């Protein structure tokens, strides 16, 4: 069982969260020329890192906020959590 420290609610069990994938993916800017390759990278292509991975989770059975979680994909260790709009250094 993972324990995720929701920046809004505190430490909660994994059961309350749902996963949203790689948080480093950026949607191409609208109102600009977007190449097929840019859309591909946004929609499909993923690095799927082994090790530290910044990802989105939603506290679906809690505050329902989207949050960012920095987690190790090999050990499942969670290093830091952020609010969705927080910049990650």
């Amino acid at each position, binding site marked *: 069982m993972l324990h995720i420290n929701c920046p809004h609610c505190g430490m909660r069990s994994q059961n309350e969260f749902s*996963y949203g994938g790689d948080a480093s993916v950026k949607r191409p800017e609208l109102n600009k020329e977007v190449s097929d390759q840019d859309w591909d990278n946004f929609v499909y292509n993923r690095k799927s890192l082994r090790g530290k991975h910044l990802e989105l989770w939603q506290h679906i059975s809690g505050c329902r906020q989207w949050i960012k979680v920095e987690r190790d994909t090999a050990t499942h260790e969670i290093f830091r959590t952020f609010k969705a709009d927080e910049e990650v250094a």
Partner: protein
Amino acid sequence: MQKYSIFNLVKNAFSNHENWDLAWKDPTPKEEYDVVIIGGGGHGLATAYYLAKEHNITNVAIIEKGWIGGGNVGRNTTIIRSNYMHDENGLFSEFGMDLWRKMSQDLNYNVMFSPRGIINLAHSDAQMNAYARRGNSMRLNGIDAVLLNREQVKEIIPMADFSENVRFPIFGGLMQPSAGTARHDAVAWGYARQADSMGVDIIQNCEVTGFDVSAGKIKGIRTSRGNIKAKKVGICVAGSTNILAEKLNMTLPIETHLLQACVSEPVKPVLDNVVTFGAGHFYVSQSDKGEMVMGGDLDGYNSYAQRGNLPTLQHVLTEGIAMMPFLSKLKMLRTWGGIMDMSMDGSPIIDKTHIDGLYLNCGWCYGGFKATPASGWTFAHTIAQDRVHELNAGYSLNRFNTGHLIDEKGLGTKTWIS
């Protein structure tokens, strides 16, 4: 190579079975190969075997980070089927069914192929309609499919929950009678033994650390046991695909996720078929030892851990108990996990890459084991002829760019959509 037969078994009994040849050698890597296959799993071993058998290319090495049979080929739930609706998947898998039927003779190794049939249960009228459509598509592609009503299903699996007041009543099911199971370890060992006997070097405990590419052409690989030159390189590493892709500066439509399976304590024969729950993701069959072999959903988040987490297992087994209540009385014997190369449309990739002489085989999601022979056969063809075969033409890497996705169930990495 020593042939495995009843006569050799009796002969070797007189020497206490101490004089059998090794099934495959443990060679040191040569300086150069015509083809290097990275990944000694089922698909990699099958690829090497068909390179030698179908294309007479025997100067081949298989580079395996761990040991033969230690990855997903030894971690799956051994189900073999071709019950797909889309032509690309159906024709590819049905070609594989033919290879499965001949495999024990072909490899001189008993893979215990057991065509016991698979039943996908339906729990609504809409699902029955969808199954009728899929069954018709299958039959148009020459695949056997039978639509069963509730009574017919009850006759085959009376132990399922047929009571009236359940959340997901059984309306019927779609059966592929020719589907079944096989002994997964034997598949790996059988392919390894035959490939080795035809001159393929199986190099274990050898991790690939990099690639030598110059002027857009592959020249060789770097490994923990030295550099190896190669005219062609095939990548066939399932859940580790993204790790190798990163070394090639490639970003793929693949995420690595963890899939769990488990077996119960062995019980007397109760279930003759493979059965899947239609209102979630759960499947079960009974092994020859009597264990109930079960599996279902991904853990749901990127993982390279090769071991599972309990919330998903609990969720999957809740579905199992809803389908077959007697499962709740069984003790769990073992659980384990493997890391899957989940593609974004749920279908695999067997293709050339933008690097000349580098080939890619990945994206097997939940269904890698049953594809082992067809994947090896088509990947060997793609490597040997430097062009895709019509069977794997749909499994192209650029389909995500052109929009020709094969969304059999729309199940890729995003399990929460289903």
